[in-house]
Structure formats: structure tokens, C-alpha cells
């Protein structure tokens, strides 16, 4: 077990390192030169920097150093939580991420809850009524929903709920987790993964149902509910857990579109603002943070997995 854990932790280190390297390379090769930006900003105020001043600025930022020295300094800064500064207003990036995190976190948690309490039951129902109309409707419906991109889903839901059904006002800004706009938002970003969970649950249960121990459980007279809950669902849901890591990735990408449309001050909107204003350090920071979170969650899933399924080999 210790060996398994240490292996998993060891594997994540080169992955994280390579991710950092890629992000740093993007910034290194990328189109933005911070000194050039500073020069332009000063020039706007009528102060023109000389060549020596530019070189001095370059030196003070460490831009004249070799690639790996710069990369090392970048890593050091990251370890201290310094994600760099926005090119637009020179404000540090980390506090912004920290401020945006609860919003995105709440959305992801809400979506996760919807997924668990709606997705898994629907998957079980579809498997229970295998090859009936209900099954086809659930499976077909989930593929349908899975196919529709969030940036289409958001305006369409808004039109439905605001213009057509007239159930709510236009969602503008963050009003806490008890507001209708949050529930709607979490539902929207959960939809794609919801479809995945339904299909996975259904497939898993159909597979488990064929096992002898299910027949034994039925033969000894357990109620259908107990058979499903004790013997089938527990075994069928293990694979669903493994896809949690992928879901974080998906949630993040969906919430970019959602937060833009709903004006939620989360990580997604931070990312989109960075993209539109070409604020590169900002988008690198947000992407890096998300990548780190995704990997961390994958690690946790990997570590919890053998606890759920003792059959998983530790090597």
C-alpha cells in the first residue's frame, strides 16, 4: 500500500513539472514582453525610456538570464504563491484567484451534487428497465444533452426561463448559493458530466447484473432494492469514481462559458477576461492552478480507489 501511494505521488511530480514547463515555455516564447509593455505604459505618460533604462529593467526582472535560471526563479515564485502580475493593472494574480475560487468551487460542488443525486439514480433506472422505452429515452436523452455545447445551452436556457416561462429575472452577478441563478448555473455545467455518469452507471450495472452473486442474492430471497443497493450499485459505481478527475477538467471548461454569461466572478470569468484582454500571466496563472487542482483530484481518486475496490492491484 505504501508503495502504491508513493508510486502515485511520484508519477504526479514529473507531470506537474512538465505542465509548469509547458506553461513557462508559452510565456517565454509568447508574444508579450513585459519590458516592452512597461515602455509603452511610460511612453503614454510622456516618459520615454532610454536603451540603458530598458536594459536595466530587463536585468531587474531577470530576463537577461539563461532559460533554466529563469525557469528556476519562476518555480521558486510559484512555491511562494506568486503567480505573477496582471499586465493590465499590475495587480498580483494570486489574490484574484483566491477570491474567485469559492465561486467556482461552489459551482463545481453544486454540479457534483446534482450529478450524484440525479445522474446515478437515472443510470440505475435505465439499467433496471434495460431495453425498454424508458431506457432508450434516458440513454438517448443523455447523449443529446452531452452533445450540446455549454455556450449554446446557456442562452437557450436563459431564453426558456426568462423570456418564455418567465420564471426568473436575468441572472446578473453572484447572489450566493441560495439564489435561483446559482442552481440554474450548477445544473447547466453538470449536464455534460451528468450524461457521462448516466451512461457509465447504466453500463456498469448491466455488467454487474450478469454476475453469479447477484443471482445468489436474489435466490436467497433479498428484496430487489437490497440486491441493487448492496450487491449491484456498490460494484457498479466504482468506475464512476475514477472519472471524477476528468470531470473537474470538464467543469472548469463549462464554467468559463457559464460564468461569462451569468457574470459570476469565478475562475472561468477570470480566465476569459484574461483571454480577451491578452493578459497572459493571468491566463497562465488560472490554467496552472486548474491543472494543479485537476491533478490533485486525480491523485486523490487514485488513492481512494483501492479502498473502494480491494481487487485493484497495488503495483
Amino acid at each position, binding site marked *: 500500500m505504501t508503495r502504491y501511494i508513493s508510486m502515485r505521488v511520484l508519477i504526479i511530480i514529473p507531470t506537474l513539472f512538465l505542465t509548469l514547463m*509547458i506553461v513557462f515555455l508559452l510565456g517565454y516564447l509568447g508574444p508579450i514582453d513585459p519590458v516592452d509593455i512597461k515602455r509603452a505604459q511610460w511612453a503614454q505618460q510622456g516618459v520615454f525610456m532610454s536603451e540603458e533604462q530598458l536594459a536595466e529593467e530587463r536585468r531587474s526582472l531577470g530576463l537577461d538570464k539563461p532559460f533554466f535560471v529563469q525557469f528556476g526563479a519562476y518555480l521558486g515564485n510559484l512555491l511562494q504563491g506568486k503567480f505573477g502580475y496582471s499586465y493590465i493593472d499590475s495587480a498580483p494574480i494570486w489574490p484574484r484567484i483566491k477570491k474567485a475560487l469559492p465561486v467556482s468551487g461552489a459551482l463545481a460542488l453544486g454540479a457534483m451534487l446534482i450529478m450524484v443525486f440525479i445522474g446515478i439514480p437515472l443510470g440505475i433506472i435505465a439499467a433496471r428497465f434495460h431495453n425498454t422505452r424508458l431506457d432508450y429515452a434516458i440513454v438517448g436523452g443523455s447523449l443529446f444533452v452531452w452533445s450540446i455545447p455549454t455556450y449554446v445551452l446557456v442562452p437557450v436556457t436563459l431564453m426558456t426561463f426568462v423570456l418564455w416561462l418567465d420564471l426568473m429575472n436575468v441572472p446578473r452577478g453572484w447572489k450566493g448559493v441560495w439564489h435561483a441563478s446559482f442552481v440554474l448555473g450548477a445544473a447547466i455545467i453538470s449536464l455534460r458530466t451528468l450524461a457521462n455518469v448516466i451512461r457509465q452507471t447504466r453500463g456498469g450495472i448491466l455488467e454487474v447484473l450478469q454476475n453469479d452473486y447477484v443471482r445468489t442474492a436474489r435466490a436467497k430471497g433479498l428484496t430487489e432494492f437490497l440486491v441493487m443497493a448492496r450487491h449491484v450499485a456498490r460494484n457498479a459505481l466504482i468506475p464512476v469514481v475514477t472519472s471524477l478527475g476528468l470531470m473537474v477538467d470538464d467543469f472548469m471548461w463549462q464554467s468559463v462559458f457559464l460564468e461569462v454569461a451569468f457574470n459570476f466572478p469565478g475562475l472561468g470569468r477570470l480566465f476569459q477576461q484574461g483571454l480577451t484582454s491578452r493578459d497572459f500571466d493571468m491566463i497562465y496563472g488560472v490554467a496552472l492552478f486548474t*491543472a494543479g487542482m485537476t491533478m490533485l483530484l486525480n491523485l486523490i481518486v487514485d488513492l481512494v480507489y483501492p479502498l473502494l475496490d480491494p481487487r485493484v492491484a497495488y503495483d
Partner: protein
Amino acid sequence: MAQNESTAELARDLSQETNTLKTRGLWSDAFRRLVRNRLSIIGLVIFVLLFVTAIFGPFMAPYPYMLQDLERVAEGPSRDYLLGTDAIGRDMLSRLLWGARTAGIVAIISTVFSLLLGMILGGIAAYIGSWADWLISRAIDVTMSIPQLLFASLIAATFRKPVADFVDMMYAQTGMEFFSTPTYVDLVVVFGALALIQWPGYARMIRGQILSLREKEFVEAARAVGVSQFIVLLRHLIPNALGPLIVMVTFGFGGAIVAESGLSYLGVGVQPPQASWGNMIFENQDSWRYRPWLVAMPGFTIAIVSVGINFLGDGLNDALNPRQAES
């Protein structure tokens, strides 16, 4: 699929004996299964329509995609403008048709790029094995563990200007006509970004397919009777690996269209005034309360195309990999 072949062969033997049994090959069998599924036929029709529109759409478009009629801004559907006009007076129908071309080009080229890359790397990993396999597998793991579309948008945002600068520089140096219009720069950046996130899926699958098929009895039998390695690859490995690959390419194709529109929506994909369904949604998004059809039309178009392609992929999956779809 090995069993399929052997049963097909058995059937062939039987029919030779009795002369009454009709035989069906793997592909015609799959085709029958596909046709029987109504949803996948709808998907196939949408898929073909997308191609036809991508090729001929711009010729059928009643107006150029950036022509503005400033006297008739943001109108509903009318005789002159069948689907109405957008906020700066451009014909929606024409822009949708041009958008189909953008989506089609991006989907085809990025899929081809990533498929080629995946085939080469997956093939190398499976055939050479040892260190090459280790290296490529780690590269696949790393790429797949990074949030995919987030990184695609990062790459698209970062490399847009360098690529544009490069094209400018080439034009200044060579004066070639090819480099004078940088409109395709967006497309190149989007292809690159999408190919970069899509190749690991293909590589992993091709590697897995080759490795598992190589151990199958019919390949061993072919080797044992002295069939050359190339013929084994051509006649036994590739046809058997093709089914899952076709399914994956179909889903990848739909994914590429959605991803391109997503990048364009965020402003790092195809830039206005070029028409892309994604940037059409973004441009008109703010007016959804007053002129909902402007958002709804490109939105429904993407949704229909994406749903259609995914239903087709699902149908192909059931048809080509029958044993996997049994449960």
C-alpha cells in the same frame, strides 16, 4: 472481431456446402446494423449535409459574409434576408453557410493532423516497444492529464501573434502572394491547438489495438503459415483496428467542431469578421433578450450538427463493435 471473422468463414464454408446460405461480410453486416438504427441515419444525413454545406454553402450564400446593410440592422427573417440580419446588418443565412465551411475545414484538418500524429506515435510505441513505448506513453499520460480545452485556448492565444508575425515576415522577405493575406492564420492556430490536445487519444487507442491484436490467435496463425509481417499488418491488424478507430474519429470530428466554436466564442479562435458559429454566438449574445433569434440560429446549428455527429458515432459504435455494445 476475431470471432466474427471465424463465424463468417464458417458461414462461408457452410454455404459452399449447402449452396443455400447467403453470407454477409463484416462490413455489410455492420452497415445493416447501422441502417436499422433510426437515430444514426438521421446523424448520417446531418453529417453529409454538413459536408455539402461546407463545400457548396459559400457559393449558395445570397450575400458575402461581411457585407453590411446598414439600413436593415437586426431584422427578423424577411424576403430579402431569409434568416434576418445581425446587429451590424449582415445576412445571417450567408454567415451561417460560411460558418459551415469554417467548421468543416477545422474539423477535417485538425482530425487528420491529430490522427496522423496519433497513428505514427502509437504505431512506433507498439512496434518498437521498450524505451520508445515508455517515452510515448508518458507523453500521452502527461498530455491527457492537463485540462485539455483550457490548454488549447492557451496555445491558441499565445501563438496567434507569433504565427501572424511569421507570415508577415515571410511576405516581406519573399513577396509571395500566399503570405499576403493572413486570414488563414486563425485557422492554422486553431488546427494546431486542437491537434495538440487530440492526438493522445488516437495514439493511446492505436497502441492498445496493435498490442492486443498482435496476441490474437488469428494473427499467430497467419504468422505461423508464413504470411509476411506487412501483409499481416495490412490484412489482419488494420481491418480489425478500423472499427473502433472510425468510431473515435467520428466523435473526434464532432468534438473538433464544438471546440473550434468554443475557442472562437472566447475570442482566441477564428476572429471576426470571418464567420464562425462560435463567434456569431458571442457577437449576438448580449442581445438575447431583444433579438433571441440571432443567438438561437447559430446555437441551434451547432447543436444540431453536434447531436447528429454524436448519434452517428454512437450508431457506428453499435454497428462496428457489436460485442462491446451487447450490454
